[in-house]
């Protein structure tokens, strides 16, 4: 079942720009105009198909799929979910999806072909009548397109095959749904309707209740098999998104700045848990070693709570930095933090500690043999002020 056409691609409009690159008009103009991509969903075929395959590989998304990010990701998820021949067999065995079932499904193909349109129409009536699911179909064109792929999906159930290619095709569904932000409740709920519709038509068509029941069982098996694949992919895609965000946060959470020759500054902002504390240590050590820095200033003015754990991690970081041959200066210690540290009984006597960042920078400069001096004009102005006071 598809909400959105995961594998469908519309002809690429000439001159569309993708990922900052421009698809040359020439490439597209050379294509035979009669050849439509619409009926070649799985593998790009023909000249157009080859161009499209290349564009796909280059990350090209355009037409109505632009921004949706439908891509060749399913190949990757095949690996992530470890979907190989053996895994597919294991899944099939668990769902009791036997060759007999597949044969029965193949035998139902004429039934499927006859009833697709009716089932799909009824199915979309439900989706379009519900506001939460209706918003995934902004216009008539989308509805038409999705209905088309829905028919294909439906007929695919009666292909009589359940191999790696089939599985791969199903993964697209999960990926597409994660991309458009469809939650699983609608997905699963819609499947219920889907099965009900199929059942209704089956019993009406086959008359023979025993055969109809058997057929429905086979359909249920392959449909649940599909649901499992789609939800697995959905979760894998979600986890990947979360990991990507975590990586971004990690990057942002330890911004080590070079303030002066051989002096680094790490302004810590936000709460520090043990995970982040480890990150701080690793990245501080790496940066100190890279820059061959003599001093690193860690400013904790932006850390809301300094508890034993945070203090301990700072002490450890200082010890490690010392092993590299550099020193640490801790600044931004507010009255509250000072009170906490003493009350908690943490020994941070090994560290240089100061209340203000400016003082930290002065100390750091003195450690590399530099100092900040007032300019001559400033000194003169001060003398003048003193003289006038007298």
């Amino acid at each position, binding site marked *: 079942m598809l909400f959105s056409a995961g594998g469908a691609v519309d002809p690429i409009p000439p001159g569309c720009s993708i990922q900052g690159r421009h698809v040359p008009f020439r490439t597209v103009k050379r294509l035979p105009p009669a050849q439509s991509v619409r009926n070649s969903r799985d593998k790009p075929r023909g000249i157009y198909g080859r161009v499209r395959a290349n564009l796909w590989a280059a990350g090209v998304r355009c037409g109505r799929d632009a921004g949706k990010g439908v891509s060749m990701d399913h190949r990757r998820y095949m690996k992530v979910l470890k979907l190989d021949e053996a895994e597919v067999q294991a899944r099939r065995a668990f769902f009791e999806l036997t060759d007999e079932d597949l044969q029965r499904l193949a035998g139902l193909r004429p039934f499927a072909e006859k009833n697709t349109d009716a089932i799909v129409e009824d199915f979309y009536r439900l989706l379009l009548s519900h506001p939460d699911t209706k918003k995934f179909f902004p216009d008539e064109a989308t509805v038409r397109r999705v209905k088309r792929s829905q028919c294909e999906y439906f007929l695919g159930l009666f292909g009589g095959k359940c191999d790696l290619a089939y599985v791969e095709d199903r993964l697209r569904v999960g990926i597409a749904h994660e991309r458009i932000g469809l939650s699983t409740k609608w997905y699963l709920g819609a499947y219920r309707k889907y099965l009900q519709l199929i059942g209704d038509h089956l019993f009406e068509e086959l008359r023979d209740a025993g055969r109809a029941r058997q057929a429905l069982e086979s359909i249920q098996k392959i449909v649940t098999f599909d649901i499992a694949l789609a939800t697995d992919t959905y979760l894998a895609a979600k986890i990947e998104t979360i990991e990507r965000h975590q990586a971004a946060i990690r990057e942002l959470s330890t911004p080590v700045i070079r303030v002066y020759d051989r002096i680094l500054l790490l302004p810590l902002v936000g709460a520090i848990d043990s995970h982040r504390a480890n990150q701080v*240590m690793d990245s501080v050590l790496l940066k100190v070693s890279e820059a061959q*820095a003599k001093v690193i200033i860690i400013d904790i003015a932006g850390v809301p709570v300094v508890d034993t754990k945070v203090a301990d991690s700072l002490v*450890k970081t200082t*010890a*490690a930095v*010392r*092993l*590299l*041959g*550099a020193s640490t200066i801790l600044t931004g210690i507010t009255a509250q933090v000072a009170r906490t540290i003493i009350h908690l009984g943490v020994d941070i006597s090994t560290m240089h500690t100061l209340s203000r960042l400016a003082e930290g920078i002065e100390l750091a400069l003195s450690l590399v043999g530099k100092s900040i001096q007032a300019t001559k004009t400033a000194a003169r102005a001060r003398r003048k002020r003193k003289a006038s006071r007298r």
Partner: protein
Amino acid sequence: MTGTIPILRIGRTLLATVQTDLRDNVANAFQQDALSALEKGGMSGLVIDISGLEAVDTYVARVLVDTGRMARLMGAATVLVGMRPEIAATLVRMGYPMEGVDTALNLEEGLERLRLQTRT
């Protein structure tokens, strides 16, 4: 000399460069070599360059610290230079921050540090 770690003499300073992984017996032999070199007298400093060291355990770390303290007893200051960040992190996480030994970022800094120490 019995070990595989070369110990060079530059003026009044001994320079040992660790290029391989320090296994326990190599570390022990190194300690022996360094101390017997100091025994010959006239040395005011020992620089141990561990920039080539990729892995370390507490035993080896202890041998290095002990060597430093023994050298101090024999009147020579010791500086450990060029420790890799991952080794520093490991040692601290293992709870062995090698207290009691001087450190420097690189060989140049280490020699500079010794020079300052011996002058005072």
